[in-house]
């Protein structure tokens, strides 16, 4: 029987309707631009009860044969960055920061956000330790995949031990691995955000410009990511090539003079210019004047007027030295003295972590930046009488590669080896050890154990030193009309007051030339005044005509 066109239409319609229904009942967050040629829920290898998360990875790589190798060479997996410019060995595996300090000795807690399963010893590289990459943390689109807060990267599975938390601090639920595996797609902001929005141990603690607000930001918070705006996801800018992402914070492209290039050409940078070009302002007098600024300023400087916007605060001060106080009840003291814009209370003191200061809508600090950040690693000798720069910003007005960038600066106070003058590693997490600070509140033991875990020499004496840590601000781009007004900087007490190496009109009306000019005016007025008084006094005004 020949099929009539109307029957074909009806059949096609039914199929489409069915597909739409499946997509809806799947409950996966919408993936912009999703039009994949593969429906993973139809793959037999994924239609089973996975007993463990690494089994899912095994299924993935049976088709995606090169994916595990690619991931295992990425910074998401190695946590190591060999800086080609400075020669420093960086990455989470190596650096000390001013937040939680160090990973070594605190592995199962810190590595809960590792893109792999079961990395519990920093001294062994995850590739060598046989750690299996975690595909789902980035590719799950079912929205119900997560990792436990202290499980070295493993997800909570049925039965979940009561009291277990996820990496975002939520009460953990049993993850359905099969459902997650069948839902996979390109990473959405939920995938990246569950780790990157919670860096430093909580929502927006670390970056200042990366918070849970970005899951669904208002237009004025992020013009790119807002559903009212471009509704973009992280990987729209942080483009990747073989699981390596553009947009390094250790080796920043501070000045992009290349622009977008040919369509689809650039997979190497996540810069503003790679989409907007090098002359992004309209071809008007004002636009030309604004384009004139691009040889000195990063786009972010004007277009991110404040960070920590949208109701979630960021930590601006962290003083570890006051940690360890017990309350009247003899239990570790905790104080919640800050209420942020979205109404949530944040701790201002914790016996485990010390004192914090939170801020929202923060005006950044500005500095010349050529993209290089030099870390004060554990082997460097510090001067404890000065504020230690945990990560020094490099750049100068003369080198041509630097731009004036906005930064968040964390004012820290953290432990150091008081005899050898090195920043100290500390062992904070370990519910069952008698050395972990968060369990025993004894700095002596915690630092000794931390130094041992990091494999570095320790004199046995510790102290606390003031530190600064810098975070380039590059997210939460405001709509154009909210960009900084000229007068924010072109003023006597403007935002660029501390920046040298540029001529900035409006900043110093009383410069040498300014004072000379005003003196000339004063002398003229004085001379004319004397002349006028002379005429008045003699009352014999000459006939000047």
């Amino acid at each position, binding site marked *: 029987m020949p099929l009539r066109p109307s029957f074909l239409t009806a059949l096609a319609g039914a199929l489409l309707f069915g597909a739409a229904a499946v997509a809806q009942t799947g409950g996966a967050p919408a993936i912009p631009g999703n039009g994949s040629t593969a429906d993973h829920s139809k793959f037999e290898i994924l239609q089973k009860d996975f007993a463990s998360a690494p089994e899912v990875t095994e299924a993935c790589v049976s088709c995606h044969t090169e994916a595990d190798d690619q991931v295992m060479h990425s910074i998401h997996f190695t946590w190591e960055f060999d800086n080609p410019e400075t020669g420093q060995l960086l990455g989470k595996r190596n650096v000390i920061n001013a937040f939680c300090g160090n990973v070594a000795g605190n592995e199962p807690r810190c590595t809960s956000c590792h893109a792999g399963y079961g990395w519990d010893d920093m001294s062994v590289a995850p590739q060598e330790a046989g750690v299996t990459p975690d595909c789902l943390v980035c590719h799950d689109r079912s929205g119900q995949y997560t990792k436990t807060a202290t499980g070295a990267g493993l997800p909570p599975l049925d039965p979940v031990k009561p009291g277990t938390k996820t990496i975002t601090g939520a009460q953990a639920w049993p993850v359905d691995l099969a459902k997650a595996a069948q839902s996979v797609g390109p990473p959405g902001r939920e995938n990246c955000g569950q780790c990157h929005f919670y860096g430093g141990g909580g929502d927006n603690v670390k970056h200042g410009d990366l918070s849970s607000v970005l899951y669904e930001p208002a237009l004025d918070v992020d013009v790119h990511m807002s559903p009212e705006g471009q509704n973009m996801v992280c990987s729209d800018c942080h483009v990747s090539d073989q699981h390596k992402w553009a947009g390094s914070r250790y080796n920043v492209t501070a000045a992009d003079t290349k622009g977008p290039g040919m369509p689809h050409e650039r997979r190497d940078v996540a810069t503003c210019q790679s989409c907007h070009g090098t002359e992004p302002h309209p071809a008007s007098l004002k636009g030309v004047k604004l384009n004139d600024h691009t040889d000195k300023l990063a786009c972010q400087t004007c277009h991110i007027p404040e960070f920590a916007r949208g109701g979630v605060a960021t930590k601006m001060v962290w003083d570890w030295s006051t940690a360890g106080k017990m309350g009247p009840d003899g239990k570790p003291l905790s104080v919640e003295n800050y209420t942020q814009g979205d109404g949530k209370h944040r701790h201002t003191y914790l016996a485990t972590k010390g004192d914090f200061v939170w801020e929202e809508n923060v005006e950044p600090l500005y500095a010349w930046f050529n993209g290089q950040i030099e870390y004060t690693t554990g082997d460097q000798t510090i001067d404890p009488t000065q504020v230690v720069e945990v990560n020094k910003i490099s750049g100068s007005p003369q080198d041509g590669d630097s731009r004036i960038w906005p930064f968040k600066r964390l004012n820290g106070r953290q432990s150091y080896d008081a005899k050898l003058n090195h920043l100290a590693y500390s062992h904070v997490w370990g519910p069952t050890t008698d050395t972990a600070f968060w369990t025993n509140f004894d700095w002596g033991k915690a630092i000794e154990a931390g130094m041992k875990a990091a494999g570095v020499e320790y004199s046995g004496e510790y102290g606390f030193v003031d530190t600064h840590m810098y975070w380039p601000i590059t997210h939460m781009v405001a709509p154009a009309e909210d960009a900084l*007004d*000229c007068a924010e900087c072109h003023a006597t007490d403007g935002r660029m007051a501390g920046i040298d190496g540029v*001529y900035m009109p409006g900043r110093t009306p009383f410069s040498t030339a300014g004072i*000379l000019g005003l003196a000339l005016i004063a002398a003229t007025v004085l001379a004319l005044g004397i002349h006028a008084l002379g005429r008045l006094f003699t009352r014999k005004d000459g*006939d000047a005509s």
Partner: protein
Amino acid sequence: MTERFVKIYPRFERFWHWTQMVLIFTLLFTGLAVNGLNTLIPFGPAVMLHIIAALALIVLWVFAIFWHITTGTWVHYVPTTRGLFKVARFYAWGIFKGEHHPYRKAYWRKHNPLQALTYLALKLVLFPAIWVTGVIYLTYNFWDTAPNATLWLTVMANLHLLAAYAIAAFVLAHIYLLTVGHSFREHVRPMITGFDKVNLTSEEEAYLESDEPARIR
């Protein structure tokens, strides 16, 4: 020699003078805002207005230079020492004694020697200084790759500022001198009507009356 009212400031010259006056005041007002002293206008609009007014003034100057050359009126500004000392002495001394101004305007010498010298200095030194430094300043992004570009920009911007203050000083003196003598209005009127009292030779008078009757009354 007879003293007659002659139109010595033709229409273009008056247009040039008053347009220049408006533009210079606009430039001083916005320039002081760009410099950071004047807060009556925000920085951004001040910059835009300053650039527009400056470009307009440059165009006006191009026309004015062309006009001076083609009409031969540039001869009014040729410097001379004849009577220069007398005029200087008048303003410094004689004016307090009730003396008469020693200079009498002529048909082809409508400015006194001191005035002519001042205007010449203005046109040959201050105006070129302000617009050369201004154009260099404005076009910074065409030469920002030159060695020590920031230093040169700072030098140019400061020279621009100094030239601006010098022009402001001229404006003050220029306006002050309008108060000297009979009345302010009498001094301003020629630049509005074009007519001023001028000493004419009998030949000049005869020429104007027969060939250009509209220029004499």
